[in-house]
């Protein structure tokens, strides 16, 4: 009987913990200023590199505005990583 109660309690705690973790996993949207996107034909590389990054759900890059608007899962990717990806695509993140 005691074993059954313990098992039930453990399962309940695990289900509750999973629920709490899911509730706290948030989708964030950030706008990052990017410099040097003077060439409209090459700025699409930034969006491509961002979209290929695990955790990024949406990335819109505007060479006119000089910014990238990114929607991402902050459990899977950090803003620092997103900045790194933009730098890796050849452009510079404005601090």
């Amino acid at each position, binding site marked *: 009987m005691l074993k059954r109660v313990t098992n039930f309690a453990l399962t309940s705690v695990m289900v509750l913990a999973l629920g709490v973790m899911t509730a706290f996993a948030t989708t964030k949207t950030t706008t990052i200023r990017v410099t*040097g996107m003077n*060439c409209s*034909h*090459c700025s*699409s*590389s*930034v969006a*491509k*590199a961002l979209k*290929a990054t695990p955790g990024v759900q949406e990335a819109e890059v505007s060479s006119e505005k000089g910014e990238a608007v990114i929607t991402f899962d902050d459990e899977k990717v950090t803003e620092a990583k997103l900045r790194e990806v933009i730098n*890796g*695509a*050849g*452009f510079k993140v404005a601090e």
Partner: protein
Amino acid sequence: MVQVIFLTALLALFPAQIFSQERKAPPLTLKSIEGQTVRLSDYRGKVVLINFWATWCPPCRAEIPDLIKFQKEYGKDGLQIIGVTYPPEERASVRRFTRRLKVNYPIALGTREIKASFSRDETLPLTVIIDREGVIRGTIAGILLPEEFNEQIKPLLQQQKLEGEIKDAQKSN
């Protein structure tokens, strides 16, 4: 009615050619920045990547170290990258730039017409994938990501390697 029958017949006979980008690569002869003639036909039997790029294009510059790495690593498997500048740039400045980066594949100065003969896509960088039979297997717009290399180019290289091994085995028998 005749048009419908004609189109249906066309679709039935040439589905791959109609629905995919696959077509024979146009002939290409260019002078490299080192003064050598670069002919696409000379690379028949290799998997060729024609990389359209420009020194003023930040993503083009960013992907060059990866292209150098791919050429070094997969050259023995039959990979040949050819860099073609677009739009035309000064030979001296391109040479300075590529020497500084120690680019290990031929670089030639291109024109808008040359790029248009391979693709109408204006994106830079742009990489055209040509298989060992000289057929365009696709284009990659923007930086060539390692995932894209693994998915689209590696299978072509492996296919070539396997066929080469079969030929070698046939010769030795």
